[in-house]
């Protein structure tokens, strides 16, 4: 048993060396396919995170009734904070609101002076919400006795949500297509390398080798080639991601880039697992038809 294992490894290794061209082609194909897949997954994850930060900006404003005591107001803020879908609550006093308005219109536009002491604006709270739960939050706020009126830019939020969702869906779709393509292309490549050696397989069977005896080294070889290709792809992804995220951080500091050390180990692990499994499976399946002798 141990001898069989040992033989399979030795055979697989020497076969990789003997068939340098086939091995090189397999490794480079696997590496490139997985690198593209990996790059795409990384890009998609980052876009998703970006969409998340956009969604995090969605807010609802509730104007409060006049004459609430500071106590009631702070109770209200606490209550709103507990609502499902609420991320952050901020109290904006009528004075603050007027100052903001003035700023928005230009400090010397005369709004502040014109209004004078008769500030017509109400107190308000700004509530950052989970976009999906916006309606629910709006309703809950409206139902509160302290709240006069709720203002939320529903249409805009709907659009933002739709766009981020569409981007996610598109990313998922492309990723699925890419995954299928990667699978088929790698399987095809391995099938070709096995095909190029079909005569060899045939001879082995005619000399009395069992299917398992032939399959062992072949599958191991496929595994190794897939593994090496995936490791190359992972390394390239690692350095490429580091370089790119450095670039983005320095030139677009406000775009959040997912940190490499958190993201890449799992992506790389996925790629390596995929490469290894595909290499082994591809070999085993392609071999089948040539074993019927």
């Amino acid at each position, binding site marked *: 048993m141990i*001898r*069989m294992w040992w*033989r399979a490894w030795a055979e697989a290794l020497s076969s990789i060396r*003997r*068939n340098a061209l086939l091995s090189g082609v397999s490794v480079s194909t696997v590496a490139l396919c997985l690198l593209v897949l990996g790059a795409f997954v990384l890009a998609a994850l980052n876009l998703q995170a970006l969409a998340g930060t956009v969604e995090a900006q969605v807010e609802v404003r509730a104007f409060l009734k006049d004459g609430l005591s500071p106590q009631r107001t702070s109770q209200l803020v606490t209550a709103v904070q507990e609502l499902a879908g609420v991320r952050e609550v901020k109290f904006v006093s009528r004075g603050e609101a007027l100052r903001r308005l003035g700023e928005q219109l230009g400090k010397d536009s005369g709004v502040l002076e014109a209004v004078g002491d008769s500030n017509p604006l109400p107190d308000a709270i700004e509530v950052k919400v989970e976009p999906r739960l916006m309606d629910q939050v709006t309703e809950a706020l409206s139902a509160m006795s302290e709240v006069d009126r709720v203002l939320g830019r529903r249409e805009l939020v709907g659009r933002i949500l739709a766009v981020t969702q569409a981007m996610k869906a598109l990313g998922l779709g492309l990723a699925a297509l890419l995954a299928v393509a990667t699978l088929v292309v790698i399987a095809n490549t391995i099938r070709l390398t096995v095909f190029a050696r079909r005569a*060899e397989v045939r*001879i*082995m*069977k*005619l*000399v*009395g*080798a*069992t*299917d398992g*005896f032939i399959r062992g080294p072949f599958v191991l070889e496929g595994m190794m080639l897939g593994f090496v290709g995936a490791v190359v792809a992972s390394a390239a992804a690692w350095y490429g991601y580091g370089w790119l995220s450095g670039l983005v951080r320095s030139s677009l500091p406000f775009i959040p880039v997912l940190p490499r050390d958190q993201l890449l180990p799992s992506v790389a692990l996925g790629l390596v697992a995929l490469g290894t499994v595909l290499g082994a499976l591809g070999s085993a399946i392609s071999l089948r038809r040539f074993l*019927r*002798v």
Partner: protein
Amino acid sequence: MIEMYGVSKVYPGQVVALDDINLRIRGGEFVFLVGPSGAGKSTFVRLVYGEERPTRGLVLVDGRNVGRLRPREIPYLRRRLGVVFQDFKLLNDRTVFENVAFALRVTGASGREIRRRVPAVLSLVGLEDRARARPLELSGGEQQRVSLARAIVTGPSAVLADEPTGNLDPDTSWDIVNLLLRINRAGTTVVMATHAKAIVDRLRMRVVAIENGRIIRDEPRGSYS
């Protein structure tokens, strides 16, 4: 040891290669299979080691029906037979040593056994100094002898040699035939398909002559024609 009852083999395209063959070869026999080009000799051999299945009839090896063997069992049949293929069937990307060793590895032989037996059998066929060459670096006759070495290295209970001297000069041919005779004397059944009239006529062993897929002659101490 090898028996055929009413065996026919029709290849796709209505090519009748063998037609109602009946034959018994007992263990330890030495049989020449002769006949013109395309008579069906190689087909006969292929039926025995199970590369082809008979269209009709029964092929028995050691009493077992080869045509009905399950795919899993065929490798074990082949290990009991040593086959010298007419077209050699060597693994071109391995050395001569590895080609011969392969037949042993298949059986799970140990590295020690391989290192002992392969050089011994290579020197039997006169190739001890070409062990590290690859098949495509050998002459035709050398390749043929590698195929023979691989066939006998496992000590099979029968050797099926399909024109094992076709690419050999008369002297070397005699060396090879003598080797087969020696193995035969040690108890191995030998079936040798051949065109070497001089050898067949000199040895006077059992001769089975095939023509157009039929046995036209089967003599215990026969000659080529």
